[in-house]
């Protein structure tokens, strides 16, 4: 899931590596250290300042209730079933998690864009790279959950503020 999130931010899942090394596999550890270093070296330096908005939004997303609930309930819902008694298979559950991940991430991105002064839909779209329709759609969600509010009209266009 974190790999998918890194892909969404533009940083790329190849910067995150996972390895299983037993305490007896010293040689393998050295080998993995070499491989990971070579892989990151090839990808070059990561400029955290260039990805500042995206990283902040990613942090908000993994810290957020929605994702954390989904992750923690996965085992129960795919084995015993949900509160309605339906059993979910892992693949459909994970595909739901993926779409919620993208949605929450984009919502947080929009929230932060507004906080940093991009208050109209066009400015948000320019800052985040999301299309206008998507920004409007997710803004409605943010308004519904009282995270963002309509502030005033500027030049016949609505302008928003964070709450």
């Amino acid at each position, binding site marked *: 899931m974190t790999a998918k999130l890194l892909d969404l931010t533009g940083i790329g899942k190849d910067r995150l*590596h996972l*390895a299983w090394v037993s305490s007896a596999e*010293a040689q393998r*550890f050295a080998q993995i250290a070499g491989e990971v270093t070579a892989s*990151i070296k090839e990808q070059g330096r990561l400029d955290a300042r260039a990805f500042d908005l995206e*990283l902040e939004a990613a*942090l908000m997303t993994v*810290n957020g209730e929605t994702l954390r609930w989904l992750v923690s309930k996965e085992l129960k819902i795919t084995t015993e079933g949900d509160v309605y008694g339906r059993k979910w298979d892992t693949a459909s559950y994970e595909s739901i998690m993926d779409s919620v991940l993208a949605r929450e991430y984009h919502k947080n991105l929009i929230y932060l864009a507004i906080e940093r002064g991009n208050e109209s839909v066009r400015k948000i779209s320019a800052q985040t790279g999301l299309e206008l329709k998507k920004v409007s759609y997710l803004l409605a969600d943010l308004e519904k959950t009282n995270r963002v509010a309509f502030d005033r009209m500027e030049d016949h266009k609505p302008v928003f503020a964070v709450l």
Partner: protein
Amino acid sequence: MTDFEPKIVAFLCNWCAYAGADLAGVSRLQYPSNLRTVRVMCSGRVDPVFIISAFKEGSDGVLVAG
């Protein structure tokens, strides 16, 4: 840019990967020094928050080994 040395944060689980790294050290095996190790008691402790924060704080890569 050919002498760019990446900073990689490595979350190592105490019983397996960290012990493996320790054994590599004792056996005098050579490997790149770009890994900044963080010992955790179990790789399951590693939260996505740690990983994103590592990138936020300026690491170029993250390794989780268990």
